[in-house]
C-alpha cells in the first residue's frame, strides 16, 4: 500500500518534471546592469529595451535582470548564475563586463551572449554598441555656439575609448563653430555616483564652465547646473527631459529596443550568429532628444542639418584634416577614421589640454 503510494507520488513528480521541461519552450533572456534601473540614464534605457522585448514576445519570453552589478569578479559570478538558471541569451550592458562575459561564455557554449560597448567576441559572444560620437558631434556644435565663457566642462567616467571618442568628437565640432573654445575635463572614475557627479559639475561651473557635457549615468549634473543657473547641459543616455527647457537643451538617447528584439528573435529562430553591431543616428540606435527653445533657432537649424548629414552617411564626425594632441597626423584632408581606429581610440585630438589617465 505504502509502496504503491510512493510509486504514485514518484509518477506525479516525474509528470511535473516533464511538464516543467515543456514549459521551457520559453526563451529566457538575461540582462546584467551596472547601475539601478531607476538611474534615469544608461541602465534605465537598457531596461526600457528589456521591457520592449517582453512586450514584443509576450509569454514566449521570460526576462530576468540583475542591477547594480560591480564591474569585475562579481560580474562573473552574476553572469554564471544567470547561465546556470537557464538563460538562453544574456546581455551584459557595461564595458567592464567584457572579460567576465568572455570567461563565462567559454564555459557555456550553448548560451548566447551579447556584450555592450566591448571589442572581444567569440562564437557565442556578439558585441554591440551605438555610435554615440555622432550624437556628441551634434552636442559639440550646440555647446560651442551656446558657451559665453568659452569654457566647456566635460565629466568623464573612465578613460576608455568609448568616452575618449565622445570627448574628441564634441571638441572637434565645438572648435569648428567656436575657435576659442576650451575643454575642462574631469574624470569621475565612476559610472554612477550622484553626489560625486554633482560635485564634479559644481567644480566645473566654479571654474568658469557654462556648458557641461557628461558621460556619467545619473541626472545629478543636471540638478547642479540648474541650481547654478545660466549653465547648459545635455541629457546623457536617456532624454532627461525633466530638466528641459534649461539647463538640459538636448540629449543623446540610447535606443536599444529594436536591437534587443531582433537578437531575441534570432535566438528563437535559431539564426543567431556572433556579430559586431555598431549603429548610429541613421539606424536609430542613437537618438537626439528635442533641442529646446533655450537654443537660438539658427543654432538649432545648424545642429539639425549636421544630424541629417550624419544620418545619411554624407558626413563622418571624424573627417580630416585632424591632428593628434601631440601634433602628429591623425587624418589627412578629407580622410575619415575607420572603425578599428575609432574602437581603440586612446588619444586626444589636437587642442585638448591635459592628458588621458592611463
Amino acid at each position: 500500500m505504502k509502496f504503491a503510494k510512493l510509486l504514485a507520488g514518484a509518477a506525479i513528480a516525474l509528470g511535473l518534471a516533464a511538464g516543467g521541461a515543456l514549459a521551457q519552450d520559453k526563451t529566457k533572456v538575461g540582462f546584467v546592469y551596472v547601475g539601478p534601473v531607476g538611474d534615469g540614464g544608461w541602465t534605465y534605457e537598457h531596461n526600457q529595451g528589456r521591457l520592449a522585448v517582453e512586450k514584443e514576445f509576450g509569454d514566449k519570453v521570460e526576462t530576468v535582470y540583475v542591477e547594480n552589478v560591480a564591474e569585475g569578479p562579481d560580474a562573473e559570478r552574476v553572469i554564471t548564475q544567470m547561465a546556470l538558471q537557464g538563460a538562453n541569451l544574456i546581455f551584459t550592458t557595461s564595458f567592464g563586463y567584457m572579460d567576465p562575459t568572455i570567461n563565462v561564455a567559454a564555459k557555456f557554449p550553448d548560451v548566447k551572449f551579447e556584450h555592450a560597448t566591448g571589442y572581444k567576441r567569440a562564437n557565442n559572444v556578439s558585441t554591440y554598441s551605438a555610435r554615440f560620437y555622432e550624437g556628441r558631434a551634434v552636442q559639440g556644435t550646440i555647446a560651442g555656439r551656446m558657451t559665453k565663457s568659452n569654457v566647456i566642462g566635460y565629466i568623464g567616467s573612465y578613460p576608455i575609448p568609448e568616452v575618449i571618442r565622445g570627448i574628441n568628437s564634441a571638441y572637434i565640432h565645438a572648435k569648428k563653430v567656436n575657435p576659442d573654445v576650451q575643454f575642462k575635463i574631469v574624470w569621475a572614475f565612476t559610472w554612477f555616483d550622484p553626489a560625486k557627479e554633482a560635485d564634479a559639475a559644481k567644480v566645473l561651473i566654479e571654474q568658469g564652465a557654462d556648458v557641461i557635457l557628461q558621460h556619467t549615468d545619473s541626472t545629478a549634473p543636471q540638478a547642479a547646473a540648474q541650481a547654478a543657473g545660466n549653465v547648459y547641459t545635455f541629457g546623457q543616455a536617456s532624454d532627461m527631459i525633466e530638466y528641459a527647457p534649461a539647463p538640459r537643451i538636448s540629449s543623446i538617447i540610447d535606443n536599444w529596443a529594436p536591437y534587443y528584439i531582433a537578437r531575441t528573435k534570432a535566438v528563437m529562430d535559431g539564426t543567431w550568429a556572433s556579430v559586431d553591431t555598431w549603429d548610429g543616428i541613421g539606424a536609430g540606435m542613437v537618438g537626439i532628444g528635442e533641442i529646446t527653445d533655450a537654443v537660438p533657432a539658427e543654432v538649432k537649424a545648424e545642429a539639425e542639418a549636421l544630424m541629417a548629414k550624419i544620418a545619411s552617411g554624407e558626413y563622418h564626425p571624424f573627417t580630416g584634416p585632424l591632428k593628434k594632441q601631440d601634433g602628429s597626423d591623425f587624418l589627412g584632408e578629407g580622410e575619415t577614421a575607420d572603425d578599428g581606429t575609432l574602437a581603440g581610440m586612446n588619444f586626444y585630438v589636437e587642442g585638448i589640454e591635459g592628458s588621458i589617465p592611463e
Partner: protein
Amino acid sequence: MDLSAINPVLLIASLMVAATPLLLAAIGELVVEKAGVLNLGVEGMMITGAIAGFAAAVESGSPLMGFVAAAGAGALLSLLFVVLSQIALANQVASGLALTLFGLGLSALMGQKYVGVKPPAMGRIDIPVLSDLPVLGRILFSHDIVLYFGIALTAVVWAVLKYSRIGLILRAVGENHEAAHALGYKVVKIRTLAILFGGACAGLGGAYISLIRVPQWTEGMTAGVGWIALALVVFASWKPWRALLGAYLFGGITVLQLNLQAAGVAIPVEYLAMSPYLITILVLVILSADKSNAPASLGRSFHASR
C-alpha cells in the same frame, strides 16, 4: 595648468557641503558604537532617510519637514535593528548588513514615483552683516542650517560624552555591559536609545545628499557614504572632533581633487582619485597613535541572564 582657476573661498565652502552627510552619519554611528553596538546598517538608514526626506519635502513643500521626516525614517529603520540585535540577540554584523540591503531595496521601492522630481530648495541663512564679509562671509556665514546643525551636533555629542552623567553611563555600557548591568543600568534600553539616535543622524545625512548636495532622488544615490562613515568612526578612534576633522578632510580632498583635475594639474588622475581615502586614513592613523581603544563591549550581545 592653471591654479588661479581654483577659487579657494568656493572650494572651502563646497568642501563643507561635501563633508556634512559623512559627518552626520559618522557622529550618529560614533554614539552607537560608544554604547557597544556595531551597526553596519548606516548605508541602509542613510538611503532610507534620503528618500523619506525627499518625499516629505516634495509633498509638504518644506525642506525642514523633509529633514524631520528623514530623521524619523532613519530611526524607524534602526528600530528593526534594535529588534534583531537587542531583543532577538541576533549577530550584530549580520543584522547590520541585512539592514543595509533592506534599506537599499526599500528606498528604491519608495522612490519609484520621485525619480526626476525636483525638491523645494533649502535657503541659505543670510545674516545681514556677517554674510557680506569678504571671504569669511561666504565660508562661515552663508550655508544652509543643517550644515551648522552638523557642527553643533558634534560639539554636543563631545560635551555629553565627556562631561555629563549620561555620557558616562553610555560609555560604561559600551565598555563593560555586565558591570553596567550590575550597577543597575538598563543596558538594552540605553543601547536602544543610542541606536535610534544613530539611525536619526544617518537619516539626516542621507537627506542632506538628496535635498541639498545633489539635490534630487536617484536610486542608490548615497553610493557608499555610509560605509565611509563607518570606517571614519574607527579611524577617528571614537572621538567626535576627530570624526569632524576626518569628514572635512575627506570631503575637502574629494572636492580639491576634482578642482585640480579641472585646472589641469599634471598629477595622474588615479592618484588624485585615491587621495581622499589615502590622506584621510593616513592623518587619522597618525592621530590615533595614542592608546585609545575601541569600546570593550563593541559588537557583543547582552542578555541579563548571563
